């Protein structure tokens, strides 16, 4: 059914910390790797070694320059994948029911064998979270690694989305937003987690933590220590040599 559930039992999603993301793209690669080898059709690359390589990715990292009215600009790395919206516009437009939002955990998924590849869901998504696979011609999107998070064959620490497991900076967090005690909810509260494009009224589940204000050092002359002589009264061989040379 492409009508949306009124409420989901759990509300699984990600918190992405723009303050700590270093823009290494490791999440992009681990996502591509996991989702090519596991659930659903592989994420295709077309013309991978040719002139115009084009690939399907479920997660991409943009980089933005942010310039305040006063002060210097800063660079913010910005990972973007499906936000598993509560009012997901991509789901309701689907004519076949291939796109659906699960009532048990809120994950938005595509049943690939029902997808006719019309592309309308990608048109409806304001975030560019869905990409048509160049080979399979069906719509691909983030599954929140549904084949990891419930997979009891994996070690407990691996039962989280691949991007979260991989992130070396700890910039990605996974959890249940319906649970007030979950660490994702706490992060959102502490750090002022925000929605992307709130005016599009999609009610995204994933939240972004804004970069924290940069701390500043007090007024100091950082060169000052370097101007002082290393030794006032040198008594080593170098000191003796220095004295002799001065005499010449």
């Amino acid at each position, binding site marked *: 059914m492409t009508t949306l559930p009124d409420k989901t039992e759990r509300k699984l999603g990600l918190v992405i910390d723009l303050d700590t993301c270093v823009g290494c793209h490791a999440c992009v690669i681990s996502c591509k790797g996991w989702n090519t080898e596991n659930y659903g059709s592989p994420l295709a690359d077309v013309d991978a070694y040719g002139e*115009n390589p084009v690939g399907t990715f479920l997660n991409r990292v943009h980089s933005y320059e942010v310039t*305040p009215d006063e002060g210097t*600009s800063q660079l913010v790395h910005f990972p973007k994948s499906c936000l598993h919206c509560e009012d997901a*516009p991509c789901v309701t*437009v689907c004519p076949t029911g291939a796109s659906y939002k699960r009532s048990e955990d809120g994950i938005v998924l595509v049943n690939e064998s029902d997808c006719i590849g019309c*592309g309308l869901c990608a048109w409806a998504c304001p975030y560019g979270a869905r990409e*048509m696979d160049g080979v399979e011609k069906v719509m691909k999107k983030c599954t929140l690694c549904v084949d990891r998070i419930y997979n009891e064959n994996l070690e407990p620490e691996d039962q989280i989305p691949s991007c979260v497991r991989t992130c070396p900076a700890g910039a990605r967090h996974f959890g249940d937003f319906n649970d007030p005690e979950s660490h994702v909810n706490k992060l959102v509260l502490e750090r002022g987690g925000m929605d992307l494009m709130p005016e599009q009224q999609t009610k995204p589940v994933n939240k972004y933590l804004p970069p924290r204000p940069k701390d500043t050092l007090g007024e100091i002359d950082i060169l000052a220590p370097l101007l002082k002589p290393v030794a006032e009264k040198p008594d080593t061989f170098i000191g003796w040599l220095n004295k002799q040379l001065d005499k010449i």
Partner: protein
Amino acid sequence: MHPSPSVIIFTALSGLGFGLLVFLGLKMPDVTGVLAFIFFVIGFGLAVGGLISSTFHLGRPERSLKAFKQWRSSWLSREAIAAVFTLSVMAVYAIGRIFFDYDIRILGVAGAIMSIVTVFTTSMIYAQLKSIPRWNTKLTPAYFLSLSLAGGALLAGQIKFCLLLLLISGIIQLLVWIKGDRALALSGTTIESGTGLGTIGRVRAFEPPHTGTNYLLKEFVHIVGRKHSAKLRIIALILMIGTPILLLSLSFSYFLAALSVISHIAGLFISRWLFFAEAEHVVGLYYGKR
């Protein structure tokens, strides 16, 4: 948006076809036998041809029958059902008119109403998309419906209706362009709201996520065509609205009518090309493009 030929052909031709079926269902012109056959063949040919063209847009056309399932939420599904239902009703009506000189009035009227409903469902596929502010307006159904009916009246030879409907279509087309040019700015969606970084300062796309292109850029960011949009708008308006009004006001001859039809369809294709090529998807903002 990428102006894909299959979708331009689909919306333009099926709009004309269903427009003609509206008038045929209302016995304008009141034709039977061979003449009715010709009219219905044109109407069905355009409507069905357009629908077939739309399947070329699909990645997996062999599964297209599944598209009839989700009418509760999906305008695309509603359109598929409305189109098939309308064509079925009109087919029974047409058989009566062509072979038996018999007028099943209720089917004619129902078919005419359903034809309008079908064009409306087509327009709502685009009008429902908040992600494309230029389309997300009541003007989109008005634009599709007015042109469908004007083209239908032209094909059906209903000159008085046609002149009036062309005039209305022209006004709506102008409104679509004037309001459309401001739609993205008025939508409130910006690179700042998209990244949530607007509270810190102005945001500029510094580095894209990839060195090549991708599906999103190919499908949603079409900048090349917009360069000539001002010229193309004028050409579209002259061919689609101006020329037919002028020719049909002169005097009636089959030659002038045929010329009007050709001019109108050529203009319609340009107008529909612009409809797609000029539409900005907000995802372009993430790439610093519109």
